[in-house]
Structure formats: structure tokens, C-alpha cells
């Protein structure tokens, strides 16, 4: 991107934000496959609108299209914030259809699934550059957060000056370490939670209201 187009883009982005008024903010839920993004998106949607966004699964790439829930109104301390939640496919740099065969899938299904997954990841990356106002970055706190994909994605999000919250999910698991995530990304706020069990959701909604309201 040239210097001038870059400058023009960032001015128009700033202007968009300034004049956005009470338009719902579009919050993208990003993170690696299986971190619990859909489980979280469903919990937020169920808590505030009554219905879910999409299927959760232990099979990677269950979410292969970005799914959106619009006008989710979150009420906090007498104030309310309205967000559009976008649940995205987990970002990765490789997809091998043979991995799906391990989940008792026919080859045709596995190939179709991997094709949809790659399209979904490409779309999610595109949106991150063009179309979201804030990011919830979900990590499985029982896993090592230092991966190339996490590093790159956080770098991309920072370079776009997007507000970001890091969600350390799956704190119900024995191997969970929130501290490991905090010290890996000390420049960002980390919120511990269990999207599955519903642990610490009060703080989750406080932070969402504070960061994206």
C-alpha cells in the first residue's frame, strides 16, 4: 500500500469511527481452530438475544463461513452497548483434507469441508483488513499461546489499530494457564473465562461494554 493511500485509508477509517454514532460495532471473534470461538459466540447470543449462532464441534473447522448475529444489545451498569458479533473460522496457514478423514468422514466430504474451510479463512482474513471495528481474540488457555499464527494475527490486529480483548478460554481445564497468555501478550487486556461452563461471564460482558461500547 502506498503512503498516500495508507494515509487516506486511515483518515477515512478514523472519520468512519467518529461519525459512526450509535451504529452497532462489528466485533470479530478470531483465534485458532478449536479455541472455543463458536461456543463463546453462542453463549453471548443466547444470553442477550435468546438464540444461538452456529454449531460447536471438537472437529476443527466446524465453522467454515463467518456467521453473524446482529444487534446484540448488552446492558451493563445502566448503559447498553449494541454489537454485531461475527464468529469466524479458525485462522491457520494450512488445511489438509486428510485430517478430516480421522473423524470418520468420507473422502468427498473431507475434500468439500477443507475447501469450505480455506474459503472461510480467506474471507475472515479479508474482513479483518476491511470490515471489523474490534476483535475478541480467543485462545485455549490449556495450550501454548506462542504460535506463529497467534503472533501474526495479533500483529495484524495491532497494525490496524483495532481495539482488542484477549479471552483466555477453557479455564475449567486442569492444564489451563491464564498467566501464560498474559505474559505472552502483556500489551493487551486478558480476560479468563470458560465459554462452555459460563464461568466469569460477568467480567466478560463488563470488558466488552468497556472496550467496544
Amino acid at each position, binding site marked *: *500500500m502506498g503512503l498516500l493511500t495508507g494515509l487516506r485509508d486511515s483518515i477515512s477509517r478514523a472519520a468512519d469511527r467518529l461519525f459512526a454514532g450509535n451504529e452497532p460495532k462489528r466485533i470479530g471473534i478470531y483465534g485458532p481452530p478449536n479455541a472455543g470461538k463458536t461456543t463463546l459466540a453462542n453463549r453471548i447470543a443466547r444470553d442477550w438475544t435468546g438464540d444461538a449462532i452456529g454449531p460447536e464441534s471438537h472437529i476443527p473447522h466446524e465453522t467454515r463461513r463467518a456467521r453473524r448475529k446482529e444487534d446484540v444489545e448488552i446492558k451493563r451498569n445502566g448503559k447498553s452497548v449494541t454489537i454485531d458479533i461475527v464468529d469466524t473460522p479458525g*485462522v*491457520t*496457514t*494450512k*488445511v*489438509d*483434507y486428510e485430517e478430516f478423514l480421522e473423524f470418520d468422514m468420507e473422502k468427498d466430504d473431507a*475434500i468439500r469441508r*477443507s*475447501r469450505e474451510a*480455506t*474459503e472461510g*479463512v*480467506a474471507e475472515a*482474513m*479479508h474482513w*479483518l*483488513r476491511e470490515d471489523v471495528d474490534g476483535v475478541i481474540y480467543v485462545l485455549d488457555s490449556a495450550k501454548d499461546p*506462542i504460535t*506463529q499464527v497467534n*503472533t*501474526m494475527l495479533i*500483529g*495484524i490486529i*495491532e*497494525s*490496524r489499530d483495532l481495539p482488542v480483548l484477549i479471552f483466555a478460554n477453557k479455564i475449567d481445564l486442569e492444564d489451563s494457564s491464564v498467566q501464560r497468555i498474559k*505474559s*505472552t501478550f502483556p500489551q493487551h487486556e486478558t480476560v479468563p473465562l470458560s465459554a462452555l461452563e459460563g464461568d466469569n461471564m460477568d467480567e466478560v460482558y463488563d470488558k466488552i461494554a468497556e472496550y467496544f461500547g
Partner: protein
Amino acid sequence: MAEVTEQPEPQGVQIDLISGDRMEGLTSMEKIRLILDGVHEGNIVILERGLSPDEESKLIEVTMSEINPDGFNGIEIETYPQIEAGSGSFLERLMGRTGEGKLTVIGPANRIQTLHKDEELISAFVTHR
């Protein structure tokens, strides 16, 4: 009876080291093409100065669009920040947060069995075709 000996396929790994100066004159898409063309041929591509975050996100996007079930299944990538004396903590260096360019190693996922990074070393274990 005379043995018919087949000419063996040339085996080996090509490594492309691309200098920062070479990359500097290219557009984002040209850089991504240069990298992915090399990777499609099975090469390991090493960038002296790496890509910008924006270019990295485009690299992921284009990589995804080129994955196909009977050939290419994506890339492995690791980066290293160029270490300037005394700049940044170990963790910042490890996470690639300091300095300008970052040494970047990219290869085809189906040929790189492990791409491992620690404090001072990226090691790639590459299989023959």
C-alpha cells in the same frame, strides 16, 4: 542381461534466500507471488526482512485460495526479528515485535515436517518429495 538403470529423480531441497533489497522494489502482490511460486515448487523461501502485517494477512488469504486437495495444502511459516543490540526483551524479540525487518522462513506444509523455533534458532525438518 543388461540392467536397465533408471535415471534417478534429482532429490534435494532448494532454498531461496531473498534479500531485503530485492523485496523492497516489489508490490505486496508481487512479493506474495514470489514467495508462493517458490513454495509451490517445493522450495524453502527465506526472507531477509520479512513482510508487513498487512502483507502477512494477504499471504494467508492467497495461500488459502490456492490450497487444493491433490497437491498444495498450505504453508509453514516462522519469523525472527532482526536483533539490534539491546533492543527489546527476549519475549518481544521472540514475538517479532522489535525492529524493522524480521527474518522469515516459509515452506510448503506437506514437505516441512517440523518447523521449530527457539531463542536463537529456527530449524526446519524437510522431507524429500
